[in-house]
């Protein structure tokens, strides 16, 4: 099928992008830390023979090209190397933490879409009315405010001051246990039939999700608004008005389809942006996710985690592009593929 061709072509296009990403992560891991061996052994006891042995074991005595080849080959086999601080394979450590990040990001993504599209359409339809001005100012502020600061503000109000929110420390209270099946607490708590835990998971999610999504909700609202304003002023919407179609048909059945075309690309971008943005928020809320793990490891001089995290992020981002392209092609018949 024609759409299959599009997917295949985009998948092939992913290859050079991913090679570029691998080069960068390789440089991060092998070139920036002055001496991985010293890092591994600690500074003091520098027994020369042992150092040489380890260098050989790690392949660090090979030419840089060979090292890169081995690096890429290992990654294609799912081997991201070892996490030097925990001595576990990086992938194992990542697998434990990624669901926490994904849960945060996916919920944020849904919140963004569910809030921004109706808000944007509302602001466009009520253009220059009071509600539109409120939406515009709010989204302008939302775009300007840094997420981590908003997160701290939320903690101050809802945890410290109002005592409505649970402490900003992780995904769930320490008294509650959820048997990990998928790693997604929302799913696992339901699988266990534990509705109380399910509610608690939401309570813990609320503030970080708000902090992660604020900026994206604001951006998307602004984009949907401007795109809808353009659509509502178009000739074809004038035709629809001249045909006496109902406002709801014009705004939602017709206009929204046209108006969502430009934002689709941004929605595709959003997932990647949210993962990136989640890193800081995970630090603020002590969220045991992959972003926080990658950053704290890197700060400790351990570059395996951040390499893996960057590769995963890049892959996710490229896949999101692909999904956005496919959606675009499905909606817009003019796209040739």
């Amino acid at each position, binding site marked *: 099928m024609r759409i299959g061709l599009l997917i295949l072509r985009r998948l092939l296009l992913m290859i050079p992008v991913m090679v570029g990403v691998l080069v960068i992560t390789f440089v991060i891991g092998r070139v920036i830390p002055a001496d991985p061996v010293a890092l591994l052994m600690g500074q003091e006891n520098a027994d020369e023979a042992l150092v040489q042995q380890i260098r050989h074991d790690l392949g660090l005595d090979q030419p840089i090209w060979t090292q890169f080849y081995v690096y890429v080959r290992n990654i294609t086999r799912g081997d991201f190397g070892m996490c030097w601080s925990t001595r576990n394979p990086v992938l194992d450590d990542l697998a434990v933490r990624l669901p926490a990040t994904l849960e945060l990001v996916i919920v944020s993504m849904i919140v963004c879409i569910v809030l921004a599209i109706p808000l944007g359409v509302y602001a466009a339809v009520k253009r220059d009315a009071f509600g539109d001005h409120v939406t515009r100012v709010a989204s302008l502020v939302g775009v300007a405010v840094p997420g981590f600061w908003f997160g701290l503000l939320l903690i101050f109000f809802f945890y410290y001051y109002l005592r409505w929110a649970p402490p900003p420390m992780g995904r769930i209270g320490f008294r509650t246990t959820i048997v990990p099946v998928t790693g997604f607490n929302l799913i696992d708590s339901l699988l266990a039939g534990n509705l109380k835990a399910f509610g608690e998971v939401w309570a813990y999610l609320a503030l970080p999700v708000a902090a992660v999504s604020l900026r994206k909700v604001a951006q998307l609202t602004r984009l949907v608004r401007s795109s809808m304003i353009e659509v509502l002023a178009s000739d074809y919407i*004038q035709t629809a008005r001249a045909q*006496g*179609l109902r406002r709801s048909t014009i705004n939602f059945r017709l206009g929204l*389809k*046209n108006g969502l075309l430009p934002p689709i690309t941004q929605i595709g971008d959003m997932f990647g942006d949210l993962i990136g943005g989640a890193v800081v928020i995970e630090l603020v809320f002590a969220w045991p996710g992959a972003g926080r793990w990658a950053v704290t490891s890197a700060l400790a001089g351990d570059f395996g985690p951040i390499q893996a995290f960057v590769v995963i992020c890049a892959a996710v981002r490229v896949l999101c592009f692909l999904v956005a392209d496919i959606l675009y092609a499905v*909606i817009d018949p003019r796209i040739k593929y």
Partner: protein
Amino acid sequence: MEKETTRKGAGPLETPQGVVLHIADLRVVFHTYVGTVHALSGIDLDLREGKITGLAGETGCGKSVTAKAVMQLLPSTAEVLSGRILFGGEDLVRKTPSEMDAIRGKRIGMIFQNPRAALNPLFTVEEQLYFLLHRHEHLGRKEARKRSLALLEAVRMGGAKKRLRSYPFELSTGMCQRVMIAMGLACSPKLFIADEPTTGLDVTVQAQVLELFKHLVYEVGSTALLITHDLGVIAETSDYMGVMYGGRMVEFGTTEDLIEHTLHPYTQGLLRSSFTGEDDDELHYIPGVVPDLRRPPSGCVFEARCAVCVEECRVSVPDMIEVENGHRVACFQAGAAGIADGGKAGSTRGER
């Protein structure tokens, strides 16, 4: 914008005998950042039942605003200062938006310039017809498809069945306009408004579309308002014609009368620049530019460009007066300047 203000008279709502649309003293302004634009300064227009009435005039003279006022599709910056638009015993100016929605598309059809942009790029012809037929005729998918097919055949669309599934970008501009005409006439409206329907089309396509337009309007038994800046188009299609200038109607009558017995110097100028005689290879045009409607002149709107104007034209506005049965003109010098052998060359004083 609210339409409170001093709208004239609440007289009877019956339209005169044989008249489908009766516009009286329609005044429309636009409130813009650069000032108030007096787009229409008192338009009168009657559309006779079963006839095609052409509306001519240079760009910016208020033709589209007139049509949009009838459809009540003016932007929110517009304000109707006065006037009545009587249609089917009702004043459209006083209709609420939802009342108008029931009229638009069903009892008044309208098509626009640039048919490709006027169709939604993301929906097939069938879907777009379905929205309309479902809204006004309450047809389901299946019935709508049947009716759509018949409509496309009525507008002589080759391969109608296939075209139902086409998107606008897969159609030629002429085909798009056929689809628009099909939509405009889908509910057999009493009134059909076409705003520059052939502008931008190839000459041959233009002729076909006009032919189709004429044929269908008569066949459906509709009454049409055909807006165009091209007098040639009007000469070929219209029974009556009005000429607008600077937000006013300056001459109105049967197409024949206006062309054979032109009374207004502006109409004369338009005709000269449209139809150049065989032995005449000069390019005719009307010198000067259209007036700035933010500061309409105190006298006749055409005065600044008029070759036959007199002192009177600068101070007072000429009223539309009937010169011969149904042929009306707003000019103190009507029929002057050797304009054919027009009527009695009446000139009266407007009091304003």
